C-alpha cells in the first residue's frame, strides 16, 4: 500500500494514482526547426495558437498550418496520427478550449 503516517501515528492510505516505475519515453529533439500545432476548431483555441505561430515565425521558426481536429475530444484517426508522426519538427498539442 502507498501510505504515510498521520498526526496520530496511524497510517493514511494515499488516494492518488501511483506512478509506474521506469523511464518516461519522451523525445523532444526535433529533426528540423519547425513546429506543427494541433487543436480543435474553437475560436478561442485558434486565436491563441495563431498568436503563438506568429511569435514563433518572428523567431525564425517554420510553422506549418494549424492542424484542426474534427471534434475537440475524440482521438484522431490512425491516418492522421501517422501524418503527425511524419512531421520532422516539433508537434505540439494546443489549448483545446
Amino acid at each position, binding site marked *: 500500500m502507498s501510505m504515510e503516517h*498521520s498526526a496520530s501515528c*496511524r497510517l*493514511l492510505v494515499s*488516494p*492518488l494514482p*501511483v506512478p509506474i516505475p521506469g523511464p518516461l519515453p519522451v523525445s523532444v529533439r526535433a529533426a528540423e526547426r519547425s513546429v506543427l500545432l494541433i487543436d480543435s476548431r474553437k475560436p478561442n483555441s485558434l486565436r491563441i495558437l495563431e498568436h503563438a505561430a506568429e511569435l514563433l515565425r518572428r523567431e525564425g521558426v517554420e510553422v506549418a498550418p494549424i492542424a484542426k481536429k*474534427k*471534434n475537440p475530444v475524440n482521438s484522431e484517426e490512425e491516418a492522421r496520427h501517422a501524418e503527425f508522426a511524419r512531421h520532422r519538427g516539433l508537434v505540439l498539442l494546443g489549448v483545446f478550449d
Partner: protein
Amino acid sequence: MSDLVADMRICFERGYTDGLPVVPPYSELVDEMLAALGWSASDVLAVDEELRLEIRAEQLASIAVMAGCEPAYARVLRAIGEMLLAPTFNLRGVATTTGGVAVLVILAGPVVGELELATGSNALGAPVRSGATIGRFAQMVRHICGRAGGLLDEFGTIGHPGRLSYCVAERQDTMWPGFQTQFGFDAGESCVGVMAAEGPNSVNNHYAETGEHILETIAHGLAHWGTTNFYYQGGGYLVLIAPEHMRLVAAEFSREAARQFLFERAVALTRDLARIGRIPRGIDKARNVDLDAPRSPVAHQDQITFIESGGSAGKFSAIIPGWVANVTHVKGLAGGRVALSRKGVF
C-alpha cells in the same frame, strides 16, 4: 487540537480532498472498505500509459473512506468505480473539459430502498448519508483520478455544485417502468448509472392541466438556444419528472410516446442557431446540419431518458443535460452487465 482534526488538515495539505474536510483514510478503515469491495489493495483497476500511472483498488477504497461512505455501499461503489475507469467513459475528458460537468450517479431498483436513498423532497441534494456520500465518491474519483492525481488541471469554465456530490435515485412507485428498463434491465433489478452531466435545469409549470402541456414545457427547456448539445448532438438528456407532473404525463403518454413527443418538439430553427453563433461557420459534414430544417439537440430520440424522482408536492421537473463527449453507463448490480446509452454522431 485533536489528532483527528490534525489528520484532516494533513489530508488538505496532501491534496486528499475535494475542498471539504474528509474522513482521514486510515489503513484499518481502507482495509475494511477493500474487503467489502471484494478487491485486494494492489489490484490494478486502470493504467494510464501516457502519464505512466496506475490506479489500484486501494486508491478507490481510500476515496470511499474519505467521502464518508459505509462499507455497506460497496457493491454500488465498486460498480461506479469500474464504470468511471472504463475507457468508454473518458474520465480524463470529463474532469478537464471547459464544460465543467460532474458525474451524476443514478440509482434504480430495490437498492434504492435497501440503502434508504432519498427519492422524495429535495431528491437532488438530500441530506441523507447514502446518496450524499455515494455522489461525493463519484466526484472525488473524477477529481483525483480524472486529473491524474494533480498532474492535470480541471478547466471547467463555470462548473456547478454537483461537482461536490450529485446523485439521484428513482422513486419505487414510479408510474412508468423503472429507469433501468431503458437500458434492457428488468424492473426488479438493482442498477447504478453514471452520466457526465451539467447541472439540473428546473422546469416549472403549476397551471397546466394536461400532460401534453407539461411535455411542451419540457421540450422548450430541452431546446433553449444555450443548450450545449445543438451542434454535436452528443451526450443526451436525463429528464427527471416529479410525481405531480408525472401524474398528468403518464395519464396521456407511455414513456415511448413521451420520448417521441419530446424528440419532435424539442427543436430550434437551424438558421437562428447559425445566426447567433451556435453553429460554426465551417460546418463539419458529419454533423448533418441542414440550415432549412429544424434542429434537435439530439441525433436520436433514444438519447432522451427518463426518471421519476422528487417530492409528491410541487409541479416541477428537471432537465439534466449530458456532456457532449460522453454516454451514460448503467450496470446491473446482480449480473454485472454494463449497458451504454445511445451515442449521438459525436
